[in-house]
């Protein structure tokens, strides 16, 4: 047995009781760091297809205590998320709704186990929550983000207007494929009974034609570069560079077939290329080929878990190096004092 798993509860700032699960290693790692897995959207502390259970088992085997818990109003936790639509919940998460709950989790870990250093991790909404919390709390040393969103969702935002070219291409391919797929008869039913998203269908199908006739991209260049006029999360880039400026590490893993990767590239990397070059040693990116947003096929999940493991190993070795260097320096200092 490499760990013990215990159900736990703790209170957040508002007094809501949050439910979680702690995985404690039999042999903790040297760095004394814990990993907190932050829930993705509504899919609570186990995450889609129990992804967080698998992640926790992998990480605890490396010696990291792992806490995964439900934010207020989600999973088993107390409180309520009052929104009517999922898009509005996603939007609230993307601007930091659960920062306080994440801080409460770290406070509880510190009180209960004396841990003062954390790697925050999560899929999608969990990843952005971790990034935004890192701005507020320096106990977070690293972010391990899966499919981190750089955009804002909400019922008031028409995401179709801001789709990247890669996303439109993917959507178009999917529609074209359905034309010949006999198993996709339900899509035809939806189309013929006026339940389909016709604006999206026409936009994805007609965009290449518009580009062809106009000889250029139909979107004015100014719109592409104006953050106010698109759905980019204004908190993302400042939070990312805050972590960079405070010498903290970021590891981002994306799925190859996920629109979030295309959005990350078009709406963050493209706009911040020069700035990103200057902090290249502090962040790493990995793309799991072909994978969907949830890493649902076993080979995708295994690739992601292997990458996480290798990164954590590099990190631990690096931190052991720092610990060793600090010990040598302290030793030298003692010698000087004695002399």
């Amino acid at each position, binding site marked *: 047995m490499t760990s013990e798993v215990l*159900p736990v509860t703790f209170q957040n700032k508002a007094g809501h009781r949050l439910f979680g699960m702690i995985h404690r290693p039999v042999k903790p790692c040297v760095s004394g760091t814990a990993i907190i897995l932050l829930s993705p959207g509504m899919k609570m502390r186990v995450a889609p297809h129990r992804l967080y259970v698998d992640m926790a088992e992998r990480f605890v085997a490396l010696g990291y205590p792992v806490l995964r818990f439900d934010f207020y109003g989600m999973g088993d936790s107390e409180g*309520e998320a009052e929104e009517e639509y999922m898009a509005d919940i996603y939007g609230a998460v993307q601007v930091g709704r659960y920062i306080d709950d994440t801080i409460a989790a770290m406070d509880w870990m510190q009180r209960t186990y004396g841990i003062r250093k954390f790697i925050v991790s999560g899929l999608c909404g969990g990843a952005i929550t971790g990034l935004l919390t890192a701005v507020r709390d320096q106990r977070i040393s690293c972010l391990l983000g899966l499919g981190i969103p750089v955009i804002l969702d909400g019922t008031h935002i028409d995401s179709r207007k801001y789709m990247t070219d890669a996303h439109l291409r993917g959507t178009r391919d999917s529609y074209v494929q359905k034309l010949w797929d006999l198993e996709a008869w339900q899509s035809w039913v939806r189309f013929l009974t006026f339940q389909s998203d016709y604006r999206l269908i026409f936009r994805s199908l007609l965009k290449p034609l518009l580009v062809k006739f106009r000889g250029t991209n139909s979107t004015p260049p100014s719109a592409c570069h104006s953050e106010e006029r698109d759905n980019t999360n204004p908190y993302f880039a400042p939070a990312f560079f805050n972590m960079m400026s405070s010498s903290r590490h970021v590891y981002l893993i994306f799925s190859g077939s996920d629109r979030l990767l295309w959005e990350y590239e078009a709406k963050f990397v493209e706009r911040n290329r020069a700035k990103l070059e200057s902090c290249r040693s502090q962040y790493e990116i990995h793309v799991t080929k*072909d994978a969907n947003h949830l890493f649902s096929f076993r080979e995708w999940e295994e690739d992601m878990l292997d990458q996480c493991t290798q990164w954590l190993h590099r990190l631990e070795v690096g931190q052991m190096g720092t610990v060793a260097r600090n010990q040598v320096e302290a030793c030298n200092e003692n010698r000087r004092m004695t002399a």
Partner: protein
Amino acid sequence: MDTVSAITTPPIETPLFFENGVYRLFGIVHQPVGAPSGAAWVFCHPFAEEKLLAQRVYVSFARLLAARGAWVMRFDAMGNGDSEGQFSAASVDTMLSDIDCAIHYLEGVSGISRGIGLLGLRFGATLAALAAERSPKVGRLVLWDPIVDGGKYMQELLRINLTTQSVVYKEIRHNREALVGMMKEGATVNIDGYELAYPCYEQASAINLKEGRKRFAGPCLIVQVGKDGQPIHPDLKALQETYPGGDLKSAVEEPFWKEIKRWYRAAPKLFDTTLAWVAAR
């Protein structure tokens, strides 16, 4: 949503592990708020990702029942949620054994040994119906939109795999027959990230709740969850006829066990229908 908001006294909810043979199951026991009514319920969760999507509705309804003095036990079957084991190792047999175990555990903490209610949604309702056939401790049954034809349901799940193949590889590399063949040879088939193995597929495919008169003679509520004005599905009518004490009702709700646009933290019409039925018995 008003019924949920109306709960003001914080319920006492205890997360815990309990054992079923060699593995531990995770559950949450909701204690009655105020004077106990003598009622006790075990909730049987739906299959795979549907479990996750319906989670908050289950939590809200458990809190409502607890606020009316009932004991409620929500639990994760082996290989699901926070319970131990792999999803691929689960079958209808293991899931029924887990329900028996949860009933036994609730009996121990509540002191209520007879007339325990089982509530389930979709395939969880199917399992609840099967469990009621073999446990004399079950006194009430609530089936929310039950899967009546297990074979048809398994085919729907295989369809999910085909869709994913089609999106990822732009072609179907393994058709239905090939997927079943692979499972027979010991491989698993990925359904939205869940690895379905042949024992589960085979046992679930063999389920047809319409067949035969039920042994369970207690009160049973079957609720069709659907659109306004939607006619009652013939399968549900046929299922009702197999129960000596079967009631069939409908509740207008969206399919909250699927990825939908609306956030379903509660299902008010479904809750009202169920609570009214419970109160009348």
